[in-house]
């Protein structure tokens, strides 16, 4: 059963130098963050997660590392399994393996990868997870699915974390949340990205309190008894420390077509004073079991006092 204690991560999509990246990783560790995440996109995200996470692990000692999240369609799962297990082995077991069905249509377009409909991408992700777990387990593994075939392969190396590193699976729709409920240790409750655009009104309107209640219900229904073991994660894209929460909330609300109250509660924003943020995080944990909060690395220092107050409580 998960204890629902707070922990925190930072997400780093870009840096301007090698020294800056090393500094961010070491600072995240020193400030009490649990995990450094790197996203996986082709456009506007100039760090490839696999080598960047490996490098971050090499310059730290306890910081966990993970992709948030890998687009399953970008790499064959056998290739991914070997890379993930290598990071886990060479970091003494510090990988959190975030993986998703893929959604950002511009990535697919630029790289000439066919963008199948969501249900096909989710079915492919389900097969990939079976393959990843099969290769992480002991002994040779075979699999024959709709999308992948693996024959008598004993995946090497094996990860240090047994039976496998924790999977992070995020989503905002019922199908992917059901898959997460079955397969993940950490579930990201996100916007619904069926539009292929993270900044669309469709994505934003899926983040109201009522819609978040609905997502948690999907997750509960799909997880059954497993729900209590799941760690619920949110990626907060917008962190703004301010004494004037109301006017910021109104600005966000106008831009995305939601009410100011919903703009404040939405699990992708944190706006207000330090105390208000602490209250918000406690409220979200109470209502939605959200205990694992990831913030952009630009907010890392500003947000650190909140990490100091809440991490581990």
């Amino acid at each position, binding site marked *: 059963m998960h204890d629902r204690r707070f922990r925190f991560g930072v997400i780093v999509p870009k840096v301007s*130098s090698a020294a800056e990246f090393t500094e961010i990783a070491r600072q995240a560790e020193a400030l009490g963050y649990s995990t450094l995440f790197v996203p996986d996109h*082709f456009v506007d995200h100039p760090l*490839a997660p696999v080598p960047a996470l*490996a490098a971050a692990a*090499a310059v730290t000692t306890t910081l966990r590392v993970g992709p948030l999240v890998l687009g399953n369609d970008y790499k064959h799962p*056998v290739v991914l399994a070997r*890379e993930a297990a290598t990071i886990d082995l*060479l970091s003494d077991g510090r990988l959190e393996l975030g993986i998703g069905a893929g959604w950002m249509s511009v990535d697919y*377009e*630029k790289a000439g990868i066919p963008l199948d409909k969501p249900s096909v991408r989710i079915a492919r992700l389900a097969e990939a997870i079976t393959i990843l777990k099969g290769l992480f387990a002991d002994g040779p593994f075979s699999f024959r699915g709709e999308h992948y075939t693996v024959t008598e392969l004993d995946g090497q190396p094996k990860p240090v974390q047994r039976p496998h590193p924790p999977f992070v699976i995020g989503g905002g729709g019922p199908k992917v949340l059901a898959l997460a409920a079955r397969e993940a240790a950490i579930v990201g409750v996100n916007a619904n990205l069926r539009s292929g655009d993270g900044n669309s009104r469709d994505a934003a309107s899926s983040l109201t309190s009522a819609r978040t209640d609905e997502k948690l219900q999907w997750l509960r229904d799909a997880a059954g008894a497993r729900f209590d073991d799941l760690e619920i994660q949110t990626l907060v894209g917008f962190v703004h420390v301010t004494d004037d929460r109301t006017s910021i909330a109104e600005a966000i609300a106008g831009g995305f077509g939601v009410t100011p109250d919903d703009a404040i509660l939405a699990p992708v924003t944190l706006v207000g004073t330090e105390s208000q943020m602490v209250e918000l995080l406690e409220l979200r944990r109470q209502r939605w079991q959200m205990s694992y909060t990831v913030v952009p690395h630009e907010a890392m220092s500003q947000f650190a006092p909140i990490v100091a107050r809440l991490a581990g409580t």
Partner: protein
Amino acid sequence: MSHAFRFGVQLSEATSASEWRDNARRVEDLGYSTLYMPDHFVDTSLAPMPAIAIAAAHTTTLRVGALVFDNDYKHPAILAKEMATIDQLTDGRCELGIGAGWMKTDYDALGLPYDSPGVRIARLDEALQVIKGCWADGPFSFSGTHYKIREYDAQPKPAQQPSMPILIGGGGPKVLRLAGREADIIGINPNLRAGAVTTDAAASASKAETVKKLGWIREGAGDRFDAIELQIRYFVCAITDDALGFAAAVAPGFDSTPEEVLGSGAALVGTIPAMIDQLVARRDDWGVSNIVVGGDNYLDFAPVVAALAGT
């Protein structure tokens, strides 16, 4: 004009984080230029991409790369992005080793179609254009048989400008002509058309065959031949007082005589001084200045590195 000698080690195994870190530092301390990793799934261990990133993070001057990435395992735009990321995070210590792919057991295990060598090489040719397009300034588009790229301004660009060195290895005429046209470093390898290491592969490394391979590289390279660094990965590297006796023992595996083994472009056999002489002679004859040995003998081989590196 010949290139200065430099040396590499091809490593694939480690059972812990500290072992891998210590290995990388030892390779650097012994004067090797580059740590390379193979890219296979069956009977090999670490994945090269994260492992070279970690090796580079634990060292300060060591160069890193794969020897070589199999093009068929990953989309070239992803490979380009990952290698450029490591190049940025190491202030420019990467070499992109890439090949058409050959080990059939990998393809079978992954369920990947094992196309004819001609198709795999054509795909590698396209992949090189995609990779170079990703690394050049501004958006690019590409429409090939195997890859399509649309108005993509890939990030990051490599720290090494205008490009990180591209290393292509091969043993047949098509891939070596392609390497001659496109690569900065060319590995002269056995011909692996059989899809496995066989006597056919071993025989294709004979002295006469090595000269033929140089001819194919020249055909592809034209005027740029002198700028290309030539590499041999010595799969047979034995420090011994009894070179002929050693050669007699391995000759059946090469399908040749002991004398032919000693002349083979895949074998380096003898005392340390004899190896030094032979490498100097081969650089004079063949132009090969970039020498790679395996994890099983890089420690014993270190005196050769100490004598020749940079000369």
